[in-house]
């Protein structure tokens, strides 16, 4: 029986880990980590850039020996390099904000469910209103209020996202608290922390984990959108979104590569995160594997 369980577990996880999106995502992370080592040039070091090679189409061999695989932008920066450097910023911003948002949302949601009464009412009303407004609107309000800066962007994304976690966790925790095993725990002289951390949290957290990749995808897209609108990361730390925005003005003149390739990279990143998220959700959702029983 034990061996059998292990085998199904293995089967399930093997199917997930060798998936193409998973590999792609891993590649993205590796590329972002190794960007300074593998990028052909540092696009933000003026000494490495040759302005007269601006707007070269993909495949151009530059005078200084650079091979511009994906072409150069309007200032002569190698597009491949700007993508690799932009990827770093995009990932740092989105991962940081997702982690913070998850922690805050988790705490708020479990507290609302466990303490009930006014704690629940206050937290959930804020969550309800926030979730009833479109994310971009909340983000814009936050940005307008907070002002520019990389830390502000992270904060804005956290403000947008914490509510989703809070609502989901609270829903799960609430249905768990109605279950008899928690009633049984309440009938003993258990300290509050034990009820919370030994009984409630371990049983509520697993379904919420599936949210993390989905929200990470949203975070990447949101950061890119804000940066594209010029309300995101500062110009000296361009993310993928700002790189696409740089190329927008050249689109009409036919220099499609300046915005197309960074956009494609961004799309690939979000898609791989979303597909991995989909896989995680399918594997953790009890309804989709009810036949195992």
């Amino acid at each position: 029986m034990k061996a059998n369980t292990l085998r199904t577990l293995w089967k399930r996880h093997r199917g997930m880990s060798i998936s193409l999106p998973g590999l792609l995502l891993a590649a993205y992370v590796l590329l972002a980590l190794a960007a300074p080592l593998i990028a052909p040039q540092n696009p933000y070091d003026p000494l490495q850039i040759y302005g007269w090679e601006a707007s070269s189409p993909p495949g151009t061999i530059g005078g200084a020996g650079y091979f511009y695989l994906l072409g150069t932008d309007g200032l002569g920066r190698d597009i491949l390099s700007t993508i690799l450097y932009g990827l770093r910023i995009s990932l740092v911003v989105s991962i940081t904000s997702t982690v913070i948002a998850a922690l805050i949302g988790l705490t708020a949601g479990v507290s609302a469910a466990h303490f009930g009464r006014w704690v629940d009412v206050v937290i959930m009303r804020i969550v309800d209103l926030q979730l009833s407004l479109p994310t971009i609107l909340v983000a814009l309000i936050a940005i307008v209020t907070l002002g520019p800066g990389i830390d502000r962007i992270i904060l804005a994304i956290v403000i947008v996202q914490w509510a989703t976690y809070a609502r989901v966790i609270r829903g799960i925790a609430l249905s768990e608290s109605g279950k008899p095993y928690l009633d049984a725990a309440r009938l003993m002289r258990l300290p509050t922390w034990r009820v919370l951390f030994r009984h409630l949290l371990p049983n509520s957290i697993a379904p919420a984990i599936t949210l993390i990749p989905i929200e990470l995808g949203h975070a990447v897209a949101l950061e890119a959108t804000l940066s594209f609108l010029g309300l995101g990361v500062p110009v000296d730390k361009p993310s993928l979104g700002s790189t696409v925005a740089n190329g927008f003005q050249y689109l009409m003149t036919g220099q499609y590569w300046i915005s197309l390739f960074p956009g494609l990279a961004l799309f690939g990143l979000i898609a791989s995160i979303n597909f991995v998220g989909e896989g995680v959700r399918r594997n953790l959702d009890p309804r989709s594997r009810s036949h195992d029983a």
Partner: protein
Amino acid sequence: MMTTIIGRLSQAALLLLVMSAIGFVGIHSVGNPVYNIVNIETATAEDIRNATIALGLDQPLWRQYLLFMGKVVTGNFGTSYIYHLPAFDLVMSKLPATLELASIAMLIAAPCGTLLGLLAGRKQGGAIDRAILKASVFALSIPSFWLSMVLILVGAITLGWFPSGGRGPTVSLVGQEWSFLTVEGLRRLTLPALALAIPNIALIARLARAGTIEVESQDFVRFCRAKGLSPRRILFRHTLPNISIPIVTIVGMQFGGMLAFAVVVETIFAWPGMGKLLIDSIQLLDRPVVMATLTFVSLAFVGLNALVDLLYAMLDPRVRLST
């Protein structure tokens, strides 16, 4: 049921109030709009002081807020620092453009999404289902600004079928200018509407798919089969009404979302709507216009939600007939 809606509206109003206060304080900590109306190089201290008084910025913050709120209630958000027009009128003049864009997009998205979702959900795990599911993940992964750019690249630059931006000629109807009444106007609407519609098709399709699977797995659908109804009748008379409740909800919510996401699409397609006005005003620190736009969109959204609640109650007899 009425009490629920009133309750929700009053809660929403309270929170909007809180948000407006936070927003008001926040926006005041970002930049000084005085420098937008006086020339920094030539202005004297006297000029700056006069401009500050003219804008009401010499008052304490709480007073500014109270004055602002007092005016807001009467629909007066102040005068745009840039256009020198009443901010609220300015926003309203841009409303028809955004409204028609979002409406056309939703008219594309809702039927397409529902149909695709039904198609996918009926044969869960089948080839059609997997294809639609995969396509929806891709569609939801495209950032809307990049989708807009690709649409321009393909539809306007490569194929040359559609113009790349701008609203073009408009026709006047009930006192407003609309472009959906002319062929040229529709051509110009196509690409931005598609940019707004595509992610929503995917979203609605996923929801309709999930709803179909859930409804079809319920006992009453099995009972319908046992009592001898044809699959067609079950699909259209039983499954569809049952999934329409969550779909109406998401369509209402997403319509509000489109009004907001128009920010991105309008900026790219140079569509002279509220979204473009908002982004321009944020960058130009045109405070009254920013506040007017954000307040209007938030209010519209809360109103839409209430409308969805009502519709929901009308569709579901369990809610409609409860006392």
